[in-house]
């Protein structure tokens, strides 16, 4: 058992996967690199020492001192990196536990509210219904937030599952547009969809890609004021399917554009037009597309609208 544990600690890839950070930033990998630097420095010190210092004991002492100092520095650096990576992982696990714990009281609240609103417990006055609706809307918002937080914690602890299957992206888009029908109508927004003929199926995780498109359509509707027009296009491009969604909404201010895929970031005008939203949607979208080996990008002009696009490999 101890031997197995020892060898598992030598598996840098496994250790680094645990922290979900690039290998170049992984503490174990950095320690390995520092080890190589130490060997190189000691050998160089020895070679130079034997050339310029006559007394072999002084050379030995010099090599040993330099090696010891470097070793201590390497240990301290990789240790502090490891602590940082571990703290980050614990934070994500903490978010996951808290979100799970929040879900139960939230379900209880939503179901109790459903009973009250159904009128089973007595007739409800219009004014009461108005306040019950506020409670319901806000508990729904909280549910969405908890769901997003759980997805983020899965992404950060590398626990986001990704099950590939073959499916039609075109069909999925059509299905989602019809599910957004009442929301888009209520927001006075029209969604059009144009797909190239005979598009191939894609090999990806359907439920995760659904989450991506859901987020993009939801944003497009949410951030369009007045009479809105949303155009969705799907075509084939260099071995991938290219999805594009264009709106004539509020757009993203230029100074905010570089931050929009960051966690919890909400642009100034987004918070002004729409108080709802956690700033997690686009972070989740980007992380899923990275996992799906796709790409994402956007063009936007404040006051005129935004166009978001992504590609998804066919194979």
């Amino acid at each position, binding site marked *: 058992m101890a031997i197995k544990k020892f060898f598992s600690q030598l598996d840098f890839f496994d250790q680094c996967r645990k922290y979900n950070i690039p290998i170049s930033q992984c503490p174990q990998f950095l320690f390995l690199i520092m080890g190589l630097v130490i060997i190189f420095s000691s050998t160089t010190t020895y070679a130079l020492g034997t050339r310029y210092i006559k007394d072999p004991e002084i050379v030995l002492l010099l090599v040993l001192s330099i090696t010891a100092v470097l070793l201590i520095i390497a240990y301290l650096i990789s240790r502090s990196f490891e602590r940082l990576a571990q703290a980050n992982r614990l934070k994500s696990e903490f978010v996951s536990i808290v979100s*799970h714990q929040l879900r139960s009281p939230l379900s*209880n609240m939503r*179901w109790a509210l*459903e*009973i009250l609103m159904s009128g*089973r417990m007595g007739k409800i006055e219009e004014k009461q219904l108005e306040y019950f609706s506020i409670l319901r809307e806000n508990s729904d918002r909280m549910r969405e937030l908890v769901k997003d937080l759980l997805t983020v914690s899965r992404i950060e602890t590398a626990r986001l599952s990704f099950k590939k299957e073959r499916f039609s992206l075109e069909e999925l888009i059509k299905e989602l547009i019809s599910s957004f029908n009442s929301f888009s109508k209520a927001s006075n927004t029209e969604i059009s969809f144009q797909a190239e003929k005979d598009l191939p199926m894609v090999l990806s995780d359907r439920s995760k890609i659904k989450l991506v498109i859901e987020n993009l359509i939801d944003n497009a509707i949410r951030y369009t004021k007045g009479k809105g027009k949303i155009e969705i296009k799907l075509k084939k491009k260099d071995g991938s399917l290219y999805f594009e969604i264009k709106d004539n909404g509020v757009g993203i201010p230029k100074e905010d554009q570089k931050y929009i895929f960051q966690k919890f970031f909400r642009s100034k005008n987004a918070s002004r037009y729409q108080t709802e939203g956690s700033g997690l949607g686009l972070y989740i979208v980007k992380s899923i597309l990275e996992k799906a080996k796709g790409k994402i990008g956007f063009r936007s002009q404040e006051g005129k609208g935004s166009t978001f696009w992504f590609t998804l490999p066919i194979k």
Partner: protein
Amino acid sequence: MKRILFIEDESALQKTLGEVLRENGYEVISALDGETGIKSAKTKKPDLILLDLILPKLSGFEVLKQLKKDEETKNIPVIVLTNLEEVKDVEKAMELGATTYLVKANYSLKEVVDKIKAALEK
């Protein structure tokens, strides 16, 4: 009258879902922990079991395992009703023999009742 055993430690859920199920004409037996749940399954012979996964004394997974091992209870359909949503949990519950896996946060009370009705009509 069809009999449902509801193994759930949250009394609020026992009240809301339990009451709506009774209104729909089912007999509901409550169990607030895993051990009591198994005992009730053997003695009361329900037509369906609703099972939470995080339970005191005996976890929902353990309850499911024991129910499916026992000749007396192995044929009773079990609907898992939980807030755990990790793929590994869903897979584990289905492997152990659950009929349906429902995540509470994703459904309204009405949707859950409809799923229960559908399972009982099968």
